[in-house]
């Protein structure tokens, strides 16, 4: 019955054009006048997308003409509320505007009669309630089928799953590049200490102690660098969010610096620092102290 739902969705697009069904759309009221309860044939009230209001210069109380097809039969409605979309990733790249209408008004405009595209059912807050309602509806229903919201979310989030996989792959490449860069810098940094290491060895400090001190220094530098990196990352994240929120006009967070990401960055940096410290100090300690002095 997947085709049935696809068919319904496609018909919804056909019928509504730029209009969307009022129920369940992820919108937030930002400004409103009193909603009417006028009889169906009087001028009806609608709520429009805040972005549409800005772009088209529509104010509260304005009368607008609505049609389901370009140049088709139109009706006049009054704008009584402005709504703002919530942070829904599925709508980020869509530039279309949303309009909320009373269900009966939209049915009349579209000639859909006493029809809806979907029903949203709220069940009791019990784990088994959804399953039992699903079974009951599907057993009793004729011509339609009930789906779990979770299943629909999974089905419709393929785009984000793809983008997420792409980001992960880019992340792995970036981590490899950063790791090589870090390893190289740490090797150079420790290589610069060859004279200090030689002096310590000539003073009678054991190779093990020298190695520990070099590794400790490497770990310290790596930690300091990663903390600085986290700061730069947080600033970059803020800039990214600021920029894309402006571009797409959404409150959605595009970049998040989470504790997990910070932990991964710091742990990876410190481990790479320690590895570089170990590699460099091992090489240095194999060379006689006088040779390190260049004698």
């Amino acid at each position: 019955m997947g085709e049935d739902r696809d068919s319904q969705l496609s018909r919804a697009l056909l019928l509504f054009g730029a209009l969307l069904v009022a129920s369940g759309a992820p919108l937030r009221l930002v400004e409103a006048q009193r909603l009417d309860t006028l009889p169906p044939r009087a001028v009806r009230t609608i709520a429009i997308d805040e972005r549409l209001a800005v772009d088209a210069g529509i104010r509260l109380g304005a009368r607008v003409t609505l049609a389901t097809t370009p140049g088709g039969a139109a009706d006049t409605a009054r704008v009584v509320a402005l709504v703002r979309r919530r942070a829904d990733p599925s709508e980020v790249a869509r530039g279309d505007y949303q309009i909320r209408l009373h269900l009966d008004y939209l049915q009349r405009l579209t000639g859909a009669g006493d029809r809806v595209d979907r029903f949203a059912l709220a069940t009791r807050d019990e784990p088994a309630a959804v399953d039992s309602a699903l079974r009951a509806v599907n057993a009793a229903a004729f011509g339609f089928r009930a789906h779990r919201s979770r299943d629909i979310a999974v089905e419709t989030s393929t785009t984000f799953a793809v983008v997420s996989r792409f980001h992960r792959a880019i992340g792995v490449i970036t981590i490899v590049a950063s790791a090589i860069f870090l390893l190289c810098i740490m090797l150079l940094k420790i290589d610069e200490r060859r004279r200090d290491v030689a002096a310590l060895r000539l003073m009678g400090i054991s190779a093990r102690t020298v190695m520990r001190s070099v590794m400790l220094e490497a770990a310290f530098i790596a930690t300091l660098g990663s903390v600085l990196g986290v700061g730069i990352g947080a600033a970059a994240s803020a800039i990214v969010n600021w920029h894309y929120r402006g571009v797409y006009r959404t409150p959605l967070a595009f970049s998040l610096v989470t504790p997990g990401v910070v932990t991964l960055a710091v742990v990876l940096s410190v481990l790479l620092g320690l590895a570089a410290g170990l590699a460099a100090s091992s090489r240095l300690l194999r060379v006689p102290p006088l040779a390190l002095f260049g004698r």
Partner: protein
Amino acid sequence: MLLTLALRSLVRHRVRTLLAVAGVAVSAAMLLDMVMLASGMRESFRGLLLEQGFQLRLAPRGTLPFDTEATIPDAGAAAARLRAHPDVVAVSGVLGGQLHVPVGERTVTGTALGVDPRVQGDYELLEGADVDAAAPASGAAVRVVFSDGMLAATGARLGDTLSVAAGYDPQLRSFAGQRTAVIVGRARFRYLAAGQRATAVALPALQAMRGAEGRDRVSLFLLRTRTGADVDAIRRWADRVEPRATAISTETAMRQVDERLSYFRQLAYILGSVSLVVGFLLVTTLVTVSVNERVGEIAVLRAIGVARERVVAQILVEGLAIMGSGSLLGLGLGLVTARYLNGILSDFPGLPASIDFFLFQPRAAWTALGLLVGAGVLAGIYPSWRGASLPIARTLRQEAVG
């Protein structure tokens, strides 16, 4: 001589040099990928739009082609008006919709395209025959062309006869516009995703099957213009003569694509810049440290009469050698990673199979290489300046005293 000295200097610290080359290779790979990503999608889409030579598209006013299910009425008269322009050589009307095929207890639904096979640009026939240009006689079977996805979903083969319908009421479980169809061909639909279920039908046949809502209507007109014609002038003319439609040129469509995919382009610019900076910093650091370690050696060279320019050149060659070898490795690595990343993004639902996010063009490789060589030269500037401006006597004394 210059190159030998530079290479020996690099070989002296093998591990360090290898790490630097590896770092530059990864940066170069990322840079190439990002250059490919920044332009690939756009060029790929442009190629797709122009594949059949249709430079203009007319969609219902205020919409993009197939963005909604709105249609253009009086399509026959509109097509005649559009053909009247002396620079318009072909007009192809396309009606979109759905086709339902009952198969046993289930119904297979796919995209239906009503086309004129003589001028259509929506599919490429892979096997069998094409659809008819006209609607079949009353009671005769409609000739249809299926995509591989549709053939697989229905389990049908070329030559099979099926019952198809243009409408389906799920509540009453009844079909509308039902006809008998014979599958005459198999095709690749250019603008649909690989595996997507699609059917091509003669335009008049699909219009008739859709009843009142399809009568003399099309979803889109494709216009092919004469070579060298002013496409923008024809677009403006089409907008005037067809007020119920919006004429969209390839450039306009490209702008729309740019807007919708600006995220990927900006991501490419940001990551490409970061890759370039990382490669630059890596080479600068390495060459600077290398020069710092060899100040005594450089001072001796200067003392025995080696020209300052020669010292500068040697240090620059060191930087370029790292950047060059890393870049060459990186370009190969970049092609492999681009293929992998393209494989991930090709899973986007509904993406036409012929669209590539990462499109290799020689220009992309040259751009990446040029940027990296430029970064290599810049990376050598500071260390070479430091090497060339060493005070010879003081450096030699410091090196001797230790």
